[in-house]
């Protein structure tokens, strides 16, 4: 696979929550049209990493960020209109959040926020995104019902549809499969494989096998440090660079 265009460049990133250093000097790049998996045990800084990229970390009080993060070559701290930045990046967090709106409005929320008012345009976006999230067939007859009344797995797909609704170029998923049954998980994974041709995907996951199945490269984080980042056939081989990676991937950790 051709990896040449850098979409996200992270260098020397450090993040503190109060006195607690959550990310300790991480540098990594994410290339166009790849799926980068990020694995690691709890408290390793995976979610924090995503929050830094779309600058929602700023909503958490008492955080301090050092180092630079560039998206498409631009330092994100220099981005004046952070809403533009966030629209460029789709985010899916582990717990599904259906907004207290209809299914249609859930997906149309982001385009509307961006100023799209044309009804047929919105209709098209809603259908397209719900199809991509493998939810369309289940909800097409009741787009007016509340998104919060869907089942957990459906809400998670609704969340994914919403993340796709602002046509992001970079899609970040944080353990999207935690509330989804295995069949749906596989369907979403298929979707992600297709989306790879259109966008760059950062996939934070606790499922090592999911990283192995989906990703081109995998980064292993532990305790806020980047232990290793490499192509999947190295990480999941019998001889990754770090012994820790091998132990973690093989499930013999600790």
């Amino acid at each position, binding site marked *: 696979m051709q990896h040449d265009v850098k979409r996200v460049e992270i260098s020397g990133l450090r993040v503190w929550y109060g006195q607690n250093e959550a990310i300790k000097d991480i540098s990594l790049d994410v290339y166009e049209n790849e799926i980068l998996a990020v694995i690691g045990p709890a408290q390793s800084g995976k979610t924090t990493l995503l929050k830094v990229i779309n600058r929602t970390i700023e909503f958490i009080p008492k955080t301090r960020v050092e180092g630079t993060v560039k998206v498409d070559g631009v330092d994100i701290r220099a981005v004046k209109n952070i809403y533009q930045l966030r*629209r460029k990046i789709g*985010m899916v967090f582990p717990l599904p959040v259906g907004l*207290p709106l209809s299914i249609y409005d859930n997906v149309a929320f982001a385009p509307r926020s961006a100023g799209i008012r044309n009804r047929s345009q919105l209709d098209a976006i809603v259908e397209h995104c719900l199809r991509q999230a493998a939810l369309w067939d289940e909800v097409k007859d009741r787009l007016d019902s509340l998104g*919060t009344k869907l089942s957990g797995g459906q809400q998670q797909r609704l969340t994914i549809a919403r*993340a796709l609704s602002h046509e992001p170029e970079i899609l970040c998923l944080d353990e999207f499969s935690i509330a989804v049954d295995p069949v749906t998980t596989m369907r979403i994974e298929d979707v992600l494989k297709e989306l790879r041709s259109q966008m760059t995907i950062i996939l934070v996951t606790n499922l090592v096998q999911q990283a192995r199945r989906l990703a081109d490269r995998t980064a292993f984080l532990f305790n806020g440090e980047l232990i290793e980042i490499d192509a999947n056939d190295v990480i999941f081989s019998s001889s990754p660079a770090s012994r820790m990676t091998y132990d973690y991937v093989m499930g013999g950790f600790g």
Partner: protein
Amino acid sequence: MSRNPFQETPLLRRKRQAEYIARSGFLLMSLLMICPLILIVCYLFYKALPILSLDFLLANPARGMRAGGIWAPFVGTIYLVVISLLVSTPIGVFAAIYLNEYARDNWLTRFINLAVVNLAGVPSIVHALFGLGAFVLFAGMGRSVLAASLTLAIMTLPVIIAATREALGSVPMAFREACWNVGATRWQTIRHIVLPNSISGILTGIILQVSRAAGETAPIMFTGAVFYKAIPEGKIFAYGLFDQCMALSMHLFTIATQVPDVPEALPYGTAVVLLCTVLLVNAASIVIRVVLRSRKKW
């Protein structure tokens, strides 16, 4: 004969009895609580019964407050309550939105919070003196509907802020984060997600302030409410902003303590009207709450 597996030991029996006593005690206290309310309402109605009629509501006080009705104070109270809430609601709600949705935890926020808490603790008579100094004298409004309403507004403001903040805080943080993640601004998030889902709590908080504004005597006594000022009977648009007015709470105080030889039913009738007005408004707030709750979306 097999042993009963649920044989009660003395210890378990004592615990069961203690549970029974605790439950009964709490129930008794809850029942005691509604007794005063029922007694008050029944007593007031019993005493006021001879005088209650539509004429009593629609007529001005007459013969040196010893006869007639309560039209002028009734309209005065409506004026004071409506104008004070028109002032305090936007300030209170917008301030609460800022404090809850925008403000970072810094010295300014803490200072504002401190001010709100302290303002809520100020006795109403102190509000009255402040209103006298600031609005009546300094701002040159004189003793007027406007000055009295502004004084009431300042008194109700901190509670409106507190109620609004609580209502906003009941909307889960996850909704806001979901909106921010798709690139919505804070205002878009507030406008489309937070406010629609907290409006019932906000409205309830505001409406509950109606009873406070209607009931307080001290803040309006120095700032705009007067002993006697007749208005055209049955006419509701009777006061200008800079007129002085009568008010139910003040009127009740006057005829109960300041005027000799008032027929007994008169103050009781006034009290009933004041109480019913307040209860009616509270009932409205309950209806709003129920209607909006039934549309709750999560």
